[in-house]
Each structure stands twice: as structure tokens, then as C-alpha cells.
């Protein structure tokens, strides 16, 4: 079986554009949403505030007999002037019973926090100190985190362009970056949709996942490019469409197997891992899938199109020589 990816390239491009567009539309809607006012639903990490998680101590007799009434919790919060906070009842890990309370509010200082905690514990039961989770993030810190993340992303893109230009040629590097943007956009787009539909929030780990996706996806693209370069060296006169098709097909087994082997631990973490890493694993799964797709269907076909247009299919370069005569 041979896949002629260049034959139906407009189909591949349409699929990518459709998904990317859906993501962009979702980001715009999300921006208009008065509750979110950002392309993605930001977590505490970026906007600041206080997040409290308490869990009842069920080893004490009678403490967990009645289920927690969310209205009681709301009432308590309202009494303290925190009526607009988001409140959730959450299940604990061992018993799967709803013994936990998750509250997200504006920045609370120590006194406000202790007051809230003791008021709550009076109404719903004693909390297990060992399981308390208190996070407070100042708003400026969140902004710094965001900018440093975005700068890291841009710098790594630039580094990759320089390296690929050096090892391959400028046009290879440019299309690899196009593919990277594609992967990052699709991942953020899908998370924006998740934010609208399920209320999924993005935290600082999301930026980490975007950077990892960048590293992996470019790896996929490079393997295919490496094949194109190798075949071009052996058969400089073969049409570029054929060369690219062959390169993709020869590396297809590898692309599938590598994606599969990387995805296996990720799926395991997603389904069975700790709460903290769930969304991280999910972002990587989406990003790696997009990365494998863009390497096979986008970066290669764009390169073909470009080389067809510029008639440069026969340029042969050895590794390490930069292309200065592209025009």
C-alpha cells in the first residue's frame, strides 16, 4: 500500500484549516464571554486569586454522615462577602464520596481565609488538615509566568529555525515552523473549546506542554525531511512530488510506531495518573497527534508545493551547508 499524500493535499489542508478555524472561533467566543475574557480559560496561575480545597476527615465518627450541601457552603461564603466565588463539591480519591469542597475566590488574606475555613468546618464537619490545599497567587506573578512562557516558546522557535536552516535549508525550516504553529494552534484551540464546554482551565503546565509538543513535533518533521534530503542526494532528477511521497511512505511505519509508543504512557497517565497531570497528558496527546499529522501531511506537502512553484526540486545540498542561493 502506498499513500500518495501529494495527490489529495487540498483535502489534508482543508482538514487542518477546519480544525484550526474552529479553535480560533472558540477563542474569539471565549474572549467575548464576560466570565472568561481570554482566548482560553485561565487558571489561578495566570489571573491570581485564592483556591482552597478542604476535605472532611472521615475517620472521625459521625463527621461524614450527611452529604455536603452545596447551598450551605454558598451561604457561608455569602456571609463572608464572597458570594461571587466559584464553589464545587468534589469527590475524594479513596472512597469516591463527595467529601471535598473546592472554592475559588479573589485574593484572600490569612484572616479572611481562616475565618472562612472555621465557618465552613462548623457547618459541614471537621476537615482533615493533611489534605488541605491552599493556593494563593498574586496577579503580577501570573503575568510574569505567562510572558516568560511565551518568550520561551518564541526563543525555542527561533532556535529551531536556525538549526534547521543550518542542517537543511531555509525553506525546510520555514515549513517546519508552519507545522509547529499548526500544532500549537490546534492544541490551544481544542483547549479553548474544552474551556467553553467543560470549563477546563489552562495552568502553567499547559505552557510546558506546548513547548514539549514543539520539541516532539519538529522531531517528526525532521525524520521525514532527512529522508527527502537523502533521496534528493541519490536521485537529484526525480520529480519532487515523487520524492516527498516516497519519503513519507518510507518513514510511515516509524511515524506510527513512535507516536504509538509515546502515546501509551501518556494515555496511562491520563486515565490512571494523578489529578495534577491529567490535563497535561491530554494536551500532549492532542499536540502529538496534531504533530504526527502535520509532519506527514502538512510540512511535506507545503515543501512540495513551494519547490514546484520555484522549480528548485533539484537542489542538492550536503548537510551542514546553508542555502544562500534560494532565489
Amino acid at each position, binding site marked *: 500500500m502506498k499513500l500518495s499524500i501529494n495527490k489529495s493535499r487540498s483535502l489534508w489542508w482543508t482538514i487542518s484549516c477546519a480544525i484550526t478555524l474552529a479553535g480560533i472561533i472558540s477563542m474569539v467566543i471565549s474572549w467575548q464571554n464576560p466570565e472568561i475574557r481570554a482566548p482560553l480559560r485561565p487558571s489561578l496561575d495566570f489571573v491570581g486569586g485564592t483556591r482552597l480545597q478542604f476535605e472532611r476527615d472521615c475517620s472521625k465518627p459521625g463527621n461524614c454522615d450527611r452529604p455536603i450541601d452545596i447551598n450551605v457552603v454558598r451561604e457561608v461564603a455569602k456571609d463572608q462577602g464572597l458570594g461571587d466565588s466559584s464553589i464545587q463539591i468534589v469527590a475524594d480519591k479513596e472512597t469516591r464520596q463527595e467529601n471535598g469542597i473546592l472554592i475559588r475566590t479573589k485574593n484572600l488574606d490569612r484572616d479572611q481565609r481562616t475565618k472562612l475555613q472555621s465557618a465552613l468546618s462548623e457547618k459541614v464537619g471537621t476537615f482533615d488538615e493533611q489534605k488541605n490545599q491552599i493556593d494563593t497567587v498574586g496577579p503580577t506573578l501570573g503575568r510574569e509566568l505567562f510572558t516568560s512562557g511565551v518568550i520561551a516558546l518564541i526563543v525555542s522557535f527561533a532556535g529551531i529555525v536556525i538549526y534547521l536552516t543550518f542542517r537543511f535549508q531555509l525553506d525546510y525550516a520555514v515549513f517546519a515552523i508552519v507545522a509547529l504553529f499548526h500544532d500549537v494552534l490546534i492544541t490551544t484551540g481544542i483547549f479553548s473549546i474544552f474551556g467553553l464546554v467543560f470549563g477546563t482551565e489552562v495552568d502553567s503546565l499547559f505552557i510546558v506542554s506546548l513547548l514539549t509538543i514543539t520539541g516532539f513535533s519538529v522531531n517528526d518533521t525532521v525524520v521525514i525531511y532527512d529522508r527527502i534530503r537523502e533521496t534528493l542526494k541519490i536521485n537529484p532528477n526525480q520529480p519532487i512530488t515523487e520524492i516527498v511521497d516516497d519519503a513519507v511512505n518510507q518513514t510511515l511505519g516509524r511515524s506510527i510506531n513512535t507516536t504509538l509508543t509515546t502515546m501509551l504512557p501518556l494515555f496511562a497517565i491520563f486515565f490512571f495518573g*494523578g489529578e495534577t497531570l491529567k490535563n497535561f497528558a491530554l494536551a500532549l496527546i492532542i499536540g502529538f497527534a496534531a504533530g504526527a499529522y502535520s509532519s506527514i501531511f502538512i510540512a511535506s506537502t507545503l515543501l512540495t508545493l513551494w519547490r514546484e512553484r520555484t522549480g528548485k526540486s533539484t537542489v542538492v545540498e550536503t548537510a551542514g551547508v546553508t542555502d544562500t542561493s534560494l532565489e
Partner: protein
Amino acid sequence: MQRQRSLLALILVLVIAALVFSFKYPAPLGLDLRGGSQLTIQVKPTAQIPQITDRELEGVKKVVEGRINSLGVSEPIIQTVGVDKILVQLPGVNDPEQAERVLGGTAQLEFRLQKPNTETPLLAFQSSRFELKAKQEELKKSQDQAAINKNLEDLKNNNQAIAELFESTKPPLDGQYLTDAYGEPTQQGNNWNVAIRFNQKGGELFAELTKNLAGTGRSIGIFLDNELISAPVVGVEFANTGITGGSAVITGRFTAQQANDLGVQLRGGALPVPVEIAEIRTVGATLGQDSIKSSIYAGIGGLILVLIFMVVYYRLPGLIADVALIIYAILTWASFCLLNVTLTLPGIAGFILSIGMAVDANVLIFERTREELMAGKSLYRSVESGFYRAFSSILDGNVTTVIACAALFYLGAGLVKGFALTLGLGVAVSMFSAITCSRSLMFVAISIPALRKPELFCPNLPGSGSSNQAEVAK
């Protein structure tokens, strides 16, 4: 073949050394895995100090250290981050309330006057304080929380008792009048002194203070956050005028280290910069353990599936890759221990992902070997060119990943850094394990005649994949 065998022996030695090392010196666990609180303190510039420099940050850090030590938390980590932040990690502290209370607010430095006729009690208190502090250090190692708390209580009472022996000048000579303090070597050059400088108003107050004390044997009490940090006496020669000119030298048999410490402490105490707690994160100890356990089990489960997949799909080479992968995991883990990388949850994620990268290298090599076999080359030649030809792909792929890691490491903070470090280290080790290790193993394997069967390398060799064969044959 001799070369391959000695390489294998070397790898074996390395693996054993790595195992021994990682059991002996395990990598420290990050706060998110151990449970505890993390506070980020931001130092705010003021009208007087519009720019926070290293010198100021260092001073504030000293103040923070003093305050944290008064809490008696075991193994606190206090470090400066960026230009204006101090990170405080308190393992095992679930309720950061106490820490918050002591950390906020501006430092209180004050020069006080010793009350008359208190010389003997002061000496007694000071010597018992010395003993209590020594005991505190002992207790910290023992982990006996009750005894630590008891000792802390004693120390606090002792502090209080000492403080009562001193009185404030009118108006109090506090940190706002101090302009500088630093350690400097004495004229003879053997010992170190601490020089202090006051502004004009401070100089006048200081002259007044020293005039009252000169020659009496009573001392100036220098208090930081209400704890006596130094108690110099004033020589009789200043009895008429006091120490004038707004500068003085505290002599004593200071080492360079002690003099500098006191200087930094004084400077920090004098800083009018307010500190603000910008971020608090706490993870309950059991919560940390829950997530580490389930994430590690999940990761290991996923990896076992990968190992099985490799053997089923790639046969003998798959088995060799699995061995190389296990060697990889051991070596990488040991390198974390060696470099004392603090393991956080994202760090473990980076490690698991780097294992994926290591597998990729072998997948590339074996796919290539298969292609060569299908093109009709001999087993030995196929294996050889599989490694040779896959190398440039592996190198380019890994270098780009390392570029992304480097950007993350230098520009990112906290969590992001840990992730970048483990992933980057992992990629570096994988270049060795996936190429050198599996290559040596492979050549030793094909030197055994029983294993020299192409079908162990590639199922249904002729027939299937005929189109592929045609491609490569061109």
C-alpha cells in the same frame, strides 16, 4: 567483536555503579511530592529605594532566614529568585498561616540601651541562649517535633527575657537611621570588624546613646525583629561626647564570614522595603503521595506496554531495544541523583517522555534495518547501515528537542525548569543508550549463530512490502 564485548562490560559496570549510587543518594523530592508549603515573597521598591538590587535582596533574604528559623521547621529552603523575589519552601508544613504571620512586614532593626544593673543576668541569659541554640541544631537532626517545639518555646522566653533588659532611646534609634553596614578587615588584618554608618539624625541619636553607655560596661543592644543579634560595649574614652560623626565600628574577634553576616543582617534590617507574600502554594502530604503514586504506577504501566509492543513488533531487535531502554532508565535516574535534581511532578513527566524519545531512536534504527533487509542485503550489512543511516535523523531530532529544553530552562521558572532539565538530561543519555548500547548488544547477538536468522529481525521477509522493496532498490 572484542571491542563490542569490552563496551558491554563497561556498560554493565556503569549500570551497577548507577544502581548503587541512586540507592545511596536518592534524588530529593520536590515540595509537590512531599507535601508542604511554598511561599513566594516579593520585595517591593519604595520611594527611598526605587530599585531592588542584589545587595538589598541578599539583606532581605537574611531577614527572612532569621524569621523562618524562629519557626523551627526542618529543612527549610530559602533562595532568591529573579531580581526581586525570595522563595521559601517549608516541607511538611500544611498550614502556612504561622509562616505568613512572621514573614510579612518590614524588618524591625533597633539599637537599644541596656538598663542599669543588668550585666549579670544578661551574661547568664546569653550563655543559656547559646546552649539552647546548640541544642536546637542537635534536635533538628533528631526529627523529634515535640522536643523541638519545647526548645523553641524556651528560646522565645529567653529572647523575651533578654529584650526586657534593654530599653528604647527616645525617639527609638531604628533601622531608618542606618545607611550602611558592612564587614571590613581590621588594621592589623587578622580579624574583621563591622562598620556601621548612620545618617545625620541617626548620628546624633547614636552619639547620645553611646555617651550614656560609655565606660559603664553596659552594652548597646542591636535587635532585629526583637531578637538580640549583637551587644557591643562602648569604650570609656567616649564618655564625654559619645561616638560622633555618624559612623562606628563594632570590634570583636569576627571571622570574615561572621562580619559579613552581621553586616548583611544589619543592612537587611535597616531596609525600609516592605515584603509582600505574592504566592502561597500548599500541598497536603497525603495528597502529594497520592499523586506521585498514581502517576508513577501509570507511567510504569505505560512503559511495560511499550516494552511488550517492541518485542511483538520488532522481535529480537525489539528485545535488545528493551534492554537498552532499561539501561537508559537506570542511567538517567542515576544522573538525576548525581546532579541532585529535585524531582517534581512535571520533572517525572519529563522523564517518562524522554523514555518515549529513547524508544523513537531505536524504532528509527530498526525500521531502517528492515528496509535494508527487504532490499536484499545481508543481515550484518543491514544492521550496520540501519544504525549508520538512522543516525542523522536521531541527531537532528534530539538537537531540536534540546533547543526547546534549553529555552525552557533559561526562561522558565519553577515547574517549567524541572521539566526542561529532566527531559534534556534524558535526551542526552538516550543518545548513548539507544545508539551505543543497543548497537553493541545487537552485534554481540548476531555473532551467535542461533540468532543469525533474518526472520528474527523481520517477519515474512519476502512477499509483503514488495512496493517498498522496489523503492529502495532504485
